[in-house]
């Protein structure tokens, strides 16, 4: 696995920060927020190692490529040997929008001819995924999913399908997005952004915080991993996507699309609701999302709901949009592998109406860490759920 997050460059920094339970959400410099309604975000710190040459790569592309390189190195994968059977499935909601905004600024201030065309070269949703495929030299199926906040999870789900079908032996799956004014002002226009760091599942939650970064998983068929003597970190056991078909920007209040997605993903993984040991929730911190998500969890887990630990990675590093599902997938895998659930910051009182066992302040050790789910619930009513199981269980 690989990750670039507001906690830093690398999976170790992500997990170290997540365990500490202190949010990386604060004042930021990616753009000037003076005229925006809110002034906080979770920004990726500058690289502390030699990165990719920036030429024609957007910031989102660079997050993606760094994460992919880390993931491939960690997997000990000699990719050139397997390039024909290696694909890339990647989520991004904004691609190189940040750089496109610089282009617009130059265009507005100084006229068309002074705006450097290089700024929009990679302003495409497929920028990060293509950059990864190019960097690792993949010859297989490459596909970018841009289904807003569920993009990363959907990309991982699509990779699972391709591996099961036998189209590929190896897939790099994940997502990447950088902060930009478009999404920042857009979520603010919807009054979805909290003025203080987001407090998912808390009584006084007022909205989400935005973040940036990338996450990548190296997925392989079990047979391929075995052949090359690799040790799996976890099993991606199931996935599903559904749609609320209800409203463009609000979830169905009863979470029917989400509960449907959880049930289908569990069935796809051949596990039942009783097998789930923790939930890495979508947990944006908006009043509507968290209520709908709690309703969905209750519909699936019934009386067990109050005793399943629930956490939201977004409470620590903000909402990473197209890469949220990917980075949260990384955190779900780490939770299973290390038998603990990372906490959310201990700020604000739990919302008793939600009836969830939310993990606050310090990591929760698990007596059983066999199975976990990660949920992503997006704009347009699109839902995606991933089911991971412990590697030894396979």
């Amino acid at each position, binding site marked *: 696995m690989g990750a670039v997050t507001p906690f830093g460059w690398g999976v170790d920094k992500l997990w170290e920060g997540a365990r500490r339970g202190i949010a990386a959400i604060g004042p930021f410099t990616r753009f000037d927020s003076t005229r925006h309604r809110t002034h906080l975000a979770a920004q990726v710190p500058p690289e502390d190692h030699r990165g990719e040459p920036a030429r024609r790569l957007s910031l989102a592309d660079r997050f993606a490529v760094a994460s992919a390189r880390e993931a491939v190195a960690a997997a000990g994968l000699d990719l050139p040997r397997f390039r024909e059977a290696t694909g890339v499935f990647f989520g991004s909601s904004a691609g190189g929008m940040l750089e496109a905004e610089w282009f617009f600024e130059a265009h507005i201030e100084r006229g068309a001819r002074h705006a450097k065309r290089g700024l929009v070269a990679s302003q495409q949703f497929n920028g990060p995924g293509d950059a990864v495929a190019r960097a690792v030299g993949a010859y*297989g199926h490459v596909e970018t999913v841009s289904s807003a906040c569920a993009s990363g999870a959907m990309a991982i789900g699509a990779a699972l399908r391709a591996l099961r079908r036998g*189209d590929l032996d190896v897939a790099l799956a994940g997502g990447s997005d950088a902060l930009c004014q478009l999404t920042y002002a857009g979520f603010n226009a919807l009054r979805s952004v909290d003025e203080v760091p987001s407090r998912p599942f808390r009584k006084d939650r007022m909205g989400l915080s935005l973040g940036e970064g990338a996450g990548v998983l190296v997925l392989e068929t079990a047979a391929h991993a075995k052949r090359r003597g690799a040790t799996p970190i976890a099993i991606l056991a199931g996935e599903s996507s559904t749609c609320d078909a209800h409203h463009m920007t609000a979830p169905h209040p009863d979470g029917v699309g989400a509960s449907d997605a959880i049930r289908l993903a569990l069935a796809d993984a051949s596990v039942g609701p009783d097998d789930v040991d923790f939930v890495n929730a979508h947990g944006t911190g908006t009043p509507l999302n968290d209520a709908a998500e709690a309703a969905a969890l209750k519909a699936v887990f019934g009386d067990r709901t109050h005793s399943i630990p629930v956490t939201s990675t977004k409470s620590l590093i903000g909402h990473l949009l197209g890469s949220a599902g990917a980075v949260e997938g990384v955190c779900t895998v780490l939770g299973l592998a290390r038998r603990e659930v990372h906490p959310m910051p201990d700020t604000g009182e739990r919302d008793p109406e939600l009836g969830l066992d939310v993990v606050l302040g310090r990591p929760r050790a698990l007596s059983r860490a066999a199975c976990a789910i990660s949920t992503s619930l997006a704009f347009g009513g699109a839902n995606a759920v991933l089911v991971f199981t412990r590697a030894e269980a396979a």
Partner: protein
Amino acid sequence: MRAVVITGLGVIGPQGVGRVPLQDALLAGRPLASPIDRSEGYHAAESSRLAALVPTLDLTRWLPPSEARRMSVPSRFAVAAARMALADAGIESLGDRRVAVVLASAFGALLFTEKLIHQILVDGPESAQPFYFSECVANAAAGRVAIALGARGANVTITQREAGPLLALARAAQEVSEGRADLAVAGSTDEVTPLLHAMLDRFRGTARAGMGREEAARPFDASRDGVLAGEGASVVVIEAEDAAAARGAPAIARIAATAAAFDPTAGVSDWGDGAAPLARALERALARAGCDVTTIDRVVSGASGARRGDRVEAATLAAAWGGEPLPPVLTPKGVVGEFGGGLLASAVVATEGAAFGRLASFGSRDPELAVAPHDGRPLPVPRRVLVSSLAAGGAAAWAVLERP
């Protein structure tokens, strides 16, 4: 794995609404080009001037104005084309079917995106309109289609430029063949704005006039110098073959195979020269689906007049056929333009047996390419059609459509 078929087509493009104007345009072979608005000052003095723009169309049969008012152009195209496709499939009500929606878009709802960025940068972020934001996310069109149809299956938006429509077709076919959906609607939607057009031109992506030639996209032509940027939407209805038969619906085409690959030698927004591995990936996928190239009697190529794009397309086809002569190669992007899903709809009508005329823009074949576009002579109705689309950036996607 259930066999899956296309049972309906909805199409909106520069040629108009529905199948008949498309068939007429493909037979005529003339580019559907009209002048792009250059008044914003985005364009350089020496630049492309034409685009395959959708004229003002009456879509009220498919999209009441009250609904259209709240939608971006790509959302409007997609919802109207989806309803048209269902009507074409003879489906009045979806009942309790689980329906998947898989749409591709190269650039999303650009006009609203530009307006929103303009509001943010010029008028100030506080003036940003929520309506623009919720419609400018790439999956807005797919969300709109889901709401319009009540589609509660997978809802996926694929953004892989020119390869997107065929990747969406493949994903939707899998949703049905692997049993996760009873029915799927798949396709693509895009719009051309003056800014996109100017940007494509600044990267020398679009065709220009010059040296006594008119501005035109010339697929596989020796003097090709860029694409005709286009817009519109194509949507198909996909069902299991037995389910379509059970309701007595005639199938338009069976989706016999799909494939995808990547050419890492391609640069950002450009094509590479990795035809050999692309051809190997195509051959493997065709062999697995039991339809190797000897069984294919028509190619609908995504060749668009792009200098490098058409070269790698031709080299890939030639390598896949291993020196054997290719079947007739149709190049609809010379008529309907690049983006907007024209390739997908053209492939569907080609499989139905629509006649393709000689491309009016075609001058002389490129001696460096082993492929030339179909010369317009009458052809028998094909049995198996290979659809090919290589994207700038390196992605590639193919599909094989066969007559049921």
